[in-house]
């Protein structure tokens, strides 16, 4: 399959990348790992006039700790996350998700930030970031801005980014000293998108839940933040009753549809079971680590 023709630029600085994006006035697209964009171009679902390949922009850097949280630079590949020692324990939801994304070869190229920009409701990173808490850092013609992940996803494949914006990093917020989490995903085979997925994160405060994050993959028009489930957990002890109630509320928050991967009813049930399993894992200190 052949994509439509496009101009190709490989800038080595962010300023240069922004200048080109500005010049094309919404007709150019950033090329990161290419693992979503190139398939779309081959199917001609996307035919940008120009591609701005940012793989040579060194400043888009890497994965580092920052003020108790994490800074995941725009060129951080899924594979780097899969291997990073940083994405364990308090950041267990991230570490658990990384190896479940696509397959090992796609993970060599695909990026976390590209995945967020792509905003596929079946993308796994969106749920993980909604659960743990994160801010997208973007540079555009008017400078740098920070978009809370809660405001980032606006619909299927639609985000708060402007056409000439480049995500420079996603910043994962400090989850506090005592925290844990995991990511559970049901997939038919390796390389498939989620039938349903659940990201679970808990920040503890004095032995009870301080803040909980639950977010769902593949069961809505965007990644779904299960706010009612989070609220019932906040301030509570992670006991059997609370876990069951949170799982019930998470399932209620899901808006699944029947498709080849399963019926809506089935997916909703998977969300309930996974939320329960995830919270139990965290309660028993079996976060991804």
């Amino acid at each position: 399959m052949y994509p439509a023709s496009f101009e190709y630029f490989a800038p080595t600085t962010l300023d240069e990348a922004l200048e080109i994006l500005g010049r094309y006035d919404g007709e150019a697209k950033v090329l990161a790992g290419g693992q979503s964009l190139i398939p779309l171009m081959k199917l001609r679902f996307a035919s940008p006039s120009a591609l701005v390949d940012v793989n040579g922009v060194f400043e888009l850097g890497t994965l580092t700790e920052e003020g108790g949280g994490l800074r995941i630079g725009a060129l951080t590949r899924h594979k780097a996350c899969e291997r990073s020692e940083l994405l364990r324990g308090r950041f267990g939801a991230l570490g658990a998700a990384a190896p479940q994304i696509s397959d090992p070869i796609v993970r060599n190229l695909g990026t976390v930030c590209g995945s967020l920009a792509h905003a596929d409701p079946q993308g796994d990173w969106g749920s993980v970031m909604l659960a743990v808490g994160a801010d997208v850092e973007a540079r555009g013609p008017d400078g740098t801005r920070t978009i809370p992940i809660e405001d980032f996803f606006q619909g299927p494949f639609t985000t708060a980014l402007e056409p000439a914006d480049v995500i420079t990093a996603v910043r994962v917020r400090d989850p506090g000293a005592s925290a844990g989490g995991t990511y559970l995903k049901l997939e038919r085979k390796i390389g498939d998108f989620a039938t349903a997925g659940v990201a679970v994160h808990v920040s503890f405060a004095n032995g009870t839940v301080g803040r909980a994050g639950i977010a769902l993959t593949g069961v809505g028009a965007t990644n779904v933040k299960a706010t009612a489930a989070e609220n019932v957990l906040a301030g509570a002890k992670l006991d059997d009753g609370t876990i069951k109630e949170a799982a019930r509320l998470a399932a209620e928050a899901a808006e699944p549809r029947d498709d080849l991967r399963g019926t809506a009813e089935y997916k909703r049930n998977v969300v309930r079971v996974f939320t329960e399993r995830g919270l139990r894992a965290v309660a028993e200190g079996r976060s991804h680590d």
Partner: protein
Amino acid sequence: MTEVITAREGAITRPITVRVNGTAHSAVVETRLLLAHFLRETLGLTGTHMGCDTTSCGACTVLLGGVPVKSCTVFAVQAEGHDVTTVEGLETADGLHPIQQAFHEEHGLQCGFCTPGMMLTATALLRENPNPTDEEIRWALSGNICRCTGYQNIVKAVHNAAAKLAGQWR
């Protein structure tokens, strides 16, 4: 160094130089040319197979800067200045590469369509992890689909290659 021009008239092109299996190739290519097509059609290296053309099967896997990538999902222009290894680059002056010899000995292929991709992914695995377990092999190869073998003999072949390579390094 070979020079090739493959673009249609009026197409959007770019000159690139890519080192493929140790030899620099310069060409003027359409920006939309996929790396798989550059290798197969521009350079005539048809050992890189196109299976699904949808990033799913791994038959088109090559090493880009030593890292396995699906060449149906990378543009040739992205390989500018980089090293690419295809199955044709595995063989050495001494004959078959240990991974090739191992696939042969263990009957790690039937139709052979997935084999170039399997072998390239496996060489990258063995470089990082010279003595992988069954599970590590299966995990590393989980982006490469085989419709024939049932994978058993592929796993055996990777173990066999690991042993051969360990012997070589000793």
